């Protein structure tokens, strides 16, 4: 981990990935992606940036593994319980006014936060008329998310989070445990569609009353943040909600004037007319 990738090599690598595989990492925050590339090189025992470039050009499988490494696939159920409490108290009652509710989880990783949302909706009596569109750029994540299977080890922490978020029932009602895994109940999952969408290159595909995109913006530079924010603005219905990660902020974004703050600490915003 003591090595660094020169800027020229970094740009080459990003370019090869873009031209050959169609994934555009140009607008990603460099400190993080450079570190993850180095980590990948260490893991694959690639000794130089040259070797990585050479292999990328010639080896499709290497790229599939690189995507696994470079994208961040860390997530939790009910991460930041206070955020979910705000959703319950301030957002869901407003969504209840719509006959059909559409929600977009952008950058859903392996689905933990999407399942959390489904639970909230269930407890608010809204799930039956809601469709959740959950997207990620990493196909392996989507495959795992669609299966609805999570490691049992994590459930203790998740249960704590759920209780702190104001959960109304016994958390174990929402899954079936078997051996080392749990399966999220089908009645929660049947309202969720998982599919691939790349925030950098793909466009508006529907109109939503709520978009959740948490801890995704931190990996983007300001320019890319601005363009994805525009995509979200265009994808929200008038007065639709946008939820970001609690350390993400609109303070430095060009479009901040087009959103009003619903909850400053939990980073819930609302599209102005």
């Amino acid at each position, binding site marked *: *981990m*003591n090595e*660094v990738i020169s800027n020229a090599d970094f740009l080459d690598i990003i370019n090869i990935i873009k031209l050959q595989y169609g994934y555009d990492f140009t607008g990603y*925050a*460099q*400190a*993080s992606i450079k*570190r*993850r590339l180095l980590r990948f090189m260490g893991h694959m025992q690639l000794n130089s940036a040259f070797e990585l470039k050479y292999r990328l050009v010639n080896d499709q499988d290497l790229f599939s593994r690189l995507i696994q490494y470079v994208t*961040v696939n*860390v997530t*939790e159920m009910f*991460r*930041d*319980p*206070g955020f979910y409490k705000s959703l319950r108290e301030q957002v869901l009652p407003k969504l209840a006014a719509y006959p059909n509710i559409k929600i977009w989880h952008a950058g859903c990783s392996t689905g933990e936060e999407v399942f959390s949302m489904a639970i909230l909706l269930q407890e608010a009596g809204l799930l039956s008329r809601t469709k959740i569109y959950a997207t990620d750029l990493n196909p392996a994540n989507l495959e795992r998310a669609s299966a609805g299977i999570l490691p049992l080890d994590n459930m203790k*922490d998740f249960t*704590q*989070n759920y209780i*702190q978020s104001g959960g109304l029932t016994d958390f174990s009602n929402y899954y079936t445990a078997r051996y080392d895994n749990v399966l999220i109940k089908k009645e929660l999952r049947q309202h969720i569609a998982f599919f691939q969408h790349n925030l950098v290159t793909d466009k508006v595909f529907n109109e939503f009353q709520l978009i959740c995109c948490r*801890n995704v*913006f*931190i*990996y983007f530079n*300001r320019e890319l*943040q601005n363009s994805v924010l525009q995509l979200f603005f265009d994808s929200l219905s008038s007065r639709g909600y946008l939820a970001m*990660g609690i*350390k*993400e*902020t609109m*303070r*430095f974004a060009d479009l901040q004037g087009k959103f009003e703050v619903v909850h400053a600490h939990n980073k819930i915003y609302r599209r102005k007319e």
Partner: protein
Amino acid sequence: MNSKFDVITIGGSAGSLLVLTELLDALPAGLTVPVIIVLHRLRNVQSEMGRLLSTNRRIVEPEDKEPVREHGVYLAPQNYHLMVEADRTFMLDYSELVNYSRPSIDMTFSSVAEVYGARTLGILLSGANKDGAAGLCQIINAGGRGVVQDPQTAAFEAMPQSAIEMCGGVEVLSIDNIKKIIIGET
């Protein structure tokens, strides 16, 4: 007040809270150099750490893309790694634990070393694992100054001791002498 450094970054874990408070209390009011602190802490509980540490200086948990400002005293937020980008703005990262930790001291030290190089002062305090050792060595390799709390005075010696063993050039100092470096006397 001028400093030999453009940034001071401090890492600590078990047993570091009191010494850290002591160091922060010693910061002269006129010191402009930003201070970036990484402490190992619990991940999903409400924390009053900023207030707990805070002295005469306001301690801020930075948000993503916030610029590193003069006079700023920053604390890595719970459950995120904290890094600095080349344009001297903060970047938060929610990736895997590093050395069983998020925030990881290594992650912060390493990115600070890359951006501030020889103008960095890195300080590693008491702790029970080796997080921060590799990062402190990167600061030293980049020409910066790397200091550890004397393991003999640390409540948990593993963290400073790991840095001493990992690379040459680590200065082993008492808290009083670390204060002197901060205020520019030595």
